[in-house]
């Protein structure tokens, strides 16, 4: 595929608002995880919560979109001059030539969970202030971004669980290449809700400690929340940072467990390298999906080691942010870009002793290294896999 320029980007998570605190955490390998105090949740687990989300004001004209998930988008879009950069680009291209593709797994379902506590005792009806379309519905995550940025081109919410926002990049790249659009806002937004907290608890996949990807004692995930956004345009100049390749596959194995030999993961990585026209040895760092569950890390390790052997440094950044689910693809795209900009791969927060059974070159400590190309993995329920390659054009 033709490289796609990443002309602006921003990220907001438990590490802070915008790029500056994210970059500082990347350098210092700080974790934003803390014991779960969210809502009325009584689970023994840690979460990566965005500070102050309850107090984020929504634009008056879009007040009906008010919910935790759209507040995370609002907060994210307001950082780093991102909306202004989008506005400039849209003035150039025309708003109807601007696509919006947002990955989310649960959108604003928290709003429905809360509304179910306030049902009319006689009729069972939901409260009158509940706005299904603009909060609960999957598309609300994309519709809010499109309305907030006043864009008018093609738009969709991608919702393939934890690969959602990685796949949003792939979709945008195809539409740019087809000439359907001239610019795209791609993002990932997922926020804390009871469905995912109690859902992962039911699968016994929540750790009671901060998650420890690849650790010999790893015992599950920590859920995080985040919003991350990118402005994509065609024809990057030599030396600029771009999306170089995308690869997607399905496991065809199980609804919530990965293929034990990581076959789908391997297919996605190989497809991404093929699309980028790159050999495996041209990758300088792999940002793993690395959730910290015993089976996910083991399956991914087989796939990664099968392609890259033990020559390339790999690790997971989920110890810093937690697993941000549908936002993970965009969050880790951001870490991939930071690795290229900072010329170093990050450390792995939470991991103390790498599982000796895992064979890829997992680095607990970050390290300086010229990084021209990064492979980023995102895998989800339903056996959905997506790998992305980011790098400097022509490097």
């Amino acid at each position, binding site marked *: 595929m033709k490289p796609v320029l990443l002309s602006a980007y921003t990220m907001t998570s438990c590490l802070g608002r915008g790029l500056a605190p994210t970059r500082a955490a990347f350098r210092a390998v700080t974790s934003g995880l803390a014991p779960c105090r969210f809502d009325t949740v009584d689970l023994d687990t840690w979460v990566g919560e965005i500070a102050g989300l309850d107090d984020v004001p929504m634009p008056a004209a879009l007040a009906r979109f008010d919910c935790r998930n759209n507040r995370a988008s609002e907060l994210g879009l307001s950082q780093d001059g991102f909306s202004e950069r989008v506005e400039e680009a849209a003035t150039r291209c025309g708003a109807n030539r601007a696509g919006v593709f947002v990955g989310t797994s649960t959108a604003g379902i928290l709003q429905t969970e809360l509304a179910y506590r306030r049902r009319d005792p006689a009729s069972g009806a939901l409260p009158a202030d509940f706005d299904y379309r603009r909060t609960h519905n999957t598309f609300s995550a994309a519709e809010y971004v499109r309305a907030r940025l006043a864009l008018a081109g093609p738009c969709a919410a991608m919702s393939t669980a934890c690969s959602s926002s990685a796949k949003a990049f792939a979709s945008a790249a195809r539409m740019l290449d087809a000439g359907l659009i001239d610019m795209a806002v791609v993002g990932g937004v997922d926020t804390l809700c009871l469905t995912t907290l109690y859902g992962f608890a039911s699968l016994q996949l929540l750790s009671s400690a901060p998650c420890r990807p690849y650790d010999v004692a790893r015992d599950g995930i920590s859920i995080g929340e985040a919003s991350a956004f990118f402005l994509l345009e065609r024809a990057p100049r030599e030396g600029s940072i771009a999306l170089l390749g995308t690869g997607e*596959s399905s496991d065809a194995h199980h609804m919530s467990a990965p293929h034990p030999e990581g076959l*789908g993961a391997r297919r996605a990585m190989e497809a991404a390298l093929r699309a980028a026209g790159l050999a495996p040895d041209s990758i300088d760092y792999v940002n793993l999906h690395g959730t910290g569950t015993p089976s996910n890390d083991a399956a991914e390790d087989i796939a990664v080691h099968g392609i890259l052997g033990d020559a390339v440094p790999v690790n997971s950044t989920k110890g810093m942010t937690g697993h941000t689910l549908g936002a993970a693809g965009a969050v880790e795209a951001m870490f991939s870009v930071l690795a290229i900009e900072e010329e170093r791969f990050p450390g792995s927060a939470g991991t103390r002793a790498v599982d000796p059974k895992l064979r890829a070159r997992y680095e607990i400590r970050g390290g300086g290294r010229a990084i021209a190309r990064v492979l980023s993995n995102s895998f989800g329920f339903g056996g959905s896999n997506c790998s992305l390659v980011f790098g400097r054009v022509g490097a």
Partner: protein
Amino acid sequence: MSLEARVEGIGLVGPGLAGWSRAREMLAGFARYKSTPSVIPTAEALPAVERRRAGKSVRISLAAGLEAAAAAGRSARNLGVVFASSTGDGENVHAICEMLASSDRLISPTRFHNSVHNAPSGYWGIATGSQCSADSLAAYDASFGAGVLEAMSRIRARPEEPVLLIAYDAPYPEPLNATRPIPDAFAVALALASPEKATRGAMITLESGGTEPDVLDDPELEALRRAIPAARSLPLLCLLAREHEGRATLDYFEGLTLTVRRS
């Protein structure tokens, strides 16, 4: 821009529309359309355990998808898939929200993994063994249009891989139904292939054009089109049923329609 594809096969499950071969006469205007409740098929293609777990949206989307793949004469294993749905599985989400509002929040693992928007895609992989890419997207009432764009841009990007577009919606139970009334289950599947690689099936081209979506002549079909997001496909299905050239303008976003030309 122009995106092209051949429609090699069609699958359909909807009120009064049980399978493409039977529905076709009605959609072509040769027989009168009569709305009767959708018949929800069992998911025969799934192993017994998954079959029991599969909700309505999984069953209708699998049935439509398999019908279209069979009509195309292609093995479902080799098709990329684009699922498009406004809602996902409404009965499942209702059950989860009820439990989370109660004193016992221990939802079942099956309920949880069925709650993802891409649950039909996961079951599709298990049923067919397909390891091809599978999308799952949502665009509220524009979901079918978004699915068409996604599927056709996939074919342009990788002409060697035919793509199955499956758009579906199923009703919510109360109280969610009152906030998003969808009267019945509807699933449509189009097996699409690149004109560079395929020689049979109607040739369709996506073009910019119409400003308003087509309104169907038959008032009952028009009511169906308006009532269910996946049924916004009906102008295209009517065009494909008629066996001659023409255009269909599909609902997408305000001020943005999608026109499909059949040649």
